[in-house]
């Protein structure tokens, strides 16, 4: 059997293992025992998580062997690795705090990231000259690990907010929390809609002008927003409803904008159906699950994961990044959008750590910051890569 098959099977296995593990973590809620003595379901859940992680490691190693370079060179590979880093960070944090509930939230987030990753092209791609360096895996894996650990602070911050925000009274906090949860639905919506149209092999080609060149782009979702000044080539297929505004930057802006629209639609539909079935806000549904977790402990785990993740992120995202940039381009810092957003992330967490010096910023405010911080990381990953043009736009 060839390596690539083993690799994708292993990734699939990891995903399934994480899924089953999540259910077992869910079962720990009903465990009446105290924090110190772990029930059997927590043990099973953790074993499954570790197995899942090992399976993903198999994916990583076999894919590396198959392609000859570290599989962190495009969107699919990087996001998959980020999911893996999040699970690793979870395992580390769990081994210290033994908080099963964390698994119930961290694993689904990791799964959403991995599912999101697999919507990008998954073929092995050869490396362009600028990426041919050992620093590719040194830099990228360290960044991903840092982001994974910071991701745990997001997960815990979110848990804190779900637990602490009063769902019985109308408030700004309640709406914003619901909005954050809604965004997770949009990601799921993206996965669902992409998978659906991929299954039926939908394809619509457009011709459009970019600067002085004429380019062709292929839509795999029906075009709601066509490319700016584009013409549909494929026949007998839905005409776009409107054109993408010209100020969208980056290559293939129209197709990406169209994907965003579809994700919003699909996410909203799934969200509304869920709401109709549950007849409650999502936050209110999850809240009772967190009844037995101490808010204090959540606050501490959130802070510690930032404290642990921040140095790792600095090392990978700024220092290793600079060293590589110096070797590849002869300048260690160039104010490329990706670099700037790494700096913004760093500024943000630096501000977070300083704010934690004052007691007034513990608890809810700090949880909001942890959520926003991960928002910045995802922004850098998704929007900066796909929308703002720059040296890092691989996908």
């Amino acid at each position: 059997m060839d390596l690539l098959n083993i690799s994708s099977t292993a990734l699939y296995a990891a995903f399934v293992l994480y899924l089953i593990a999540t259910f077992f973590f869910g079962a720990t809620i009903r465990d009446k025992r105290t924090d110190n003595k772990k029930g059997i379901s927590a043990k099973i859940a953790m074993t499954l998580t570790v197995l899942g992680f090992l399976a993903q490691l198999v994916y990583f190693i076999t894919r590396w062997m198959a392609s000859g370079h570290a599989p962190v060179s495009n969107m699919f590979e990087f996001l998959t690795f980020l999911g893996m880093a999040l699970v690793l960070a979870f395992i580390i944090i769990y081994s210290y705090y033994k908080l099963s509930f964390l698994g119930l939230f961290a694993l689904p987030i990791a799964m959403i990231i991995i599912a999101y990753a697999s919507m990008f092209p998954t073929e092995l791609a050869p490396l362009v000259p600028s990426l041919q360096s050992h620093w590719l895996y040194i830099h990228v894996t360290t960044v991903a690990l840092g982001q994974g650990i910071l991701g745990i602070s997001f997960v815990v911050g979110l848990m804190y907010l779900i637990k602490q925000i009063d769902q019985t009274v109308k408030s700004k906090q309640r709406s914003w929390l619901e909005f954050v949860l809604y965004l997770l639905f949009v990601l799921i919506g993206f996965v669902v809609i992409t998978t659906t149209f991929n299954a039926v092999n939908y394809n619509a080609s457009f011709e459009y002008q970019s600067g002085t060149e004429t380019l062709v782009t292929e839509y795999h979702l029906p075009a709601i927003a066509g490319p700016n000044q584009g013409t549909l080539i494929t026949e007998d297929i839905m005409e776009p409803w409107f054109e993408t505004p010209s100020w969208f930057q980056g290559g293939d802006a129209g197709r990406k904008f169209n994907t965003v629209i579809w994700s919003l639609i699909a996410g909203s539909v799934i969200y509304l159906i869920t709401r109709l079935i549950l007849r409650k806000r999502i936050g209110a549904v999850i809240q009772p699950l967190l009844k037995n977790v101490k808010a204090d402990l959540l606050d501490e785990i959130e802070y510690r994961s930032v404290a642990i993740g921040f140095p790792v992120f600095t090392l990978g995202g700024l220092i290793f990044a600079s060293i590589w940039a110096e070797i590849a381009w002869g300048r260690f810092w160039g104010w490329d959008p990706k670099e700037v957003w790494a700096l913004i992330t760093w500024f943000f967490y630096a501000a977070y750590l300083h704010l934690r010096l004052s007691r007034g910023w513990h608890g809810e405010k700090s949880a909001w910051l942890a959520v926003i911080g991960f928002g910045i990381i995802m922004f850098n990953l998704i929007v900066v890569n796909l929308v703002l043009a720059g040296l890092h736009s691989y996908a």
Partner: protein
Amino acid sequence: MKEIKCECGHVNPLGTVLCESCGKPIEGNQHIDGNDDEKLLNMRYDGTARRSKTYNKSWIDRVWSFFSSVKVGIWLIVLALVASMIGTIFPQEMYIPANAPNRDPAVFYEEQYGIPGLIYFQLGFHNLYSSWWFMVLIALIGISLVICSLDRFVPLFKALRNQKPKKHKSFLSRQRLFSETDFVTDHDMETVKKQLRKRRYKITEENGHILAEKGRFSRWGPYVNHIGLIIILLAAILRSTPLFYMNEYVWVREGDIEVLPETNGEYYIENKDFILETHDENDERFREAITQEGVVASNFQTDVIVYKANRPIPGAEPELEPIAEDSIRMNQPLEFDGYELYQSGYQLNEFSNMTFKIHETTDSDEEALASFTVDLRNPESEFELESGFRVVLDQYYPDYYLDDDGEPASETNFPRNPAFVFLVYPPNSESAEVSFLGIGRNIDATGENEYKIGIQDFEMHDVSGLTFKYDRSLPFFGIGAAIFMIGVIQGMYWQHRRLWIQRKKDGSLLMAAHTNKNWFGLKKDIEIVIENTNVNMVTDQQELEEKVE
């Protein structure tokens, strides 16, 4: 300077909040750390006297107080963060895409992004990161770093050195972790101490008062990492001077030897060959991706020889002595004598020269009557040919295109798409025939030419774009970054834990504990330490309130 004597006998500097020795809150100073209305003491800087909180008379005091405020520091960080974000809304000037219709920033931003683009350009945001106000912001952060650190480090260092195991009761009971036990045996005390030592606490005793401490060095982490950041900012200043940093871009044609700029003519470079390789389309691993995305480059490489110029006689042609011969690739720059050369760009297939022949217009065999070669980089204007023909190069367009008015023009000065207007004087003739010639074009303007010019042969070459630089500030950035990492790890991955135990003569015991982070770990430590003894577990006096029941 007025000093404050505590009832324990220790003399504290003015502005002290908690006695350096026994920790007793000093009356009249509690507002400084906001302790007055709180049950728990603010232990952030151990209640030391900080200059910023003590003096505010002169303007120096006020400036000091301003910059030593963490709040101000955070605001500066937030401002730098927002400014950085703004800089990514539209591309910075240096990242205006090469294929943009007009790369002049005055035109580009408005043309591409409309009114917001125009405003962006007029506010100077297209060069945001080198603007004076962004520099000022970074400098202010630097000042804040220095003052914040000095303001806190010095008193904290003294206080931690002066601390005594014997603490005042009000200090102990107002710690976040605290417990009272009615009676504890000597044996229990020994167990606790043994366990503390086993967990690598350093124990100091004074008349039955115990201070167990570990990881104090982690308290210096923030100051160490701030030193690293300051070194990085200083390195950035050094880098802005030509002594530390030089960066030039040179284009070298294959076969050419060029002088390297900014070296006073000391170094020359020869481009032997430029090589562009692509990934094999038949490589089974990547076939699918290449089919979808097109051909992918696998290597950009320039084979070069670097020469050092010897000038025994000033002004004379230098003797070139080869000092390095190597291939420069992406990710593999060439280093020599403190300089570096990077593969940064290329131009394929420029024309080096073209050979033309003259034949009779009516001759279907196009037999050459005469031929001549034009050096496209340095064309001669007139050619006297042996057969008696005379050719004048009337117009030369190295990179021919028709401009907006339909007039022939040259887009660049590089011979990528050369076109010519020749005046051909047949033998013994004073009147010329005009021929327009380019690649795929051969136009006889009048239609009455007796002779025609055709391209007989040509030679081509590639051009390598190389970044030539030195950056002597790099070691300083390296040292700064290393110190930052050491500091940040020291501060984040270790914690300063302290445990105070006070046993009275009647056997009753007070226990209090403090850490700068990771309370969970400290509680775990205490649980283990008091195991199998009568000592009560500490209660956490500051749990975040549970909002929802």
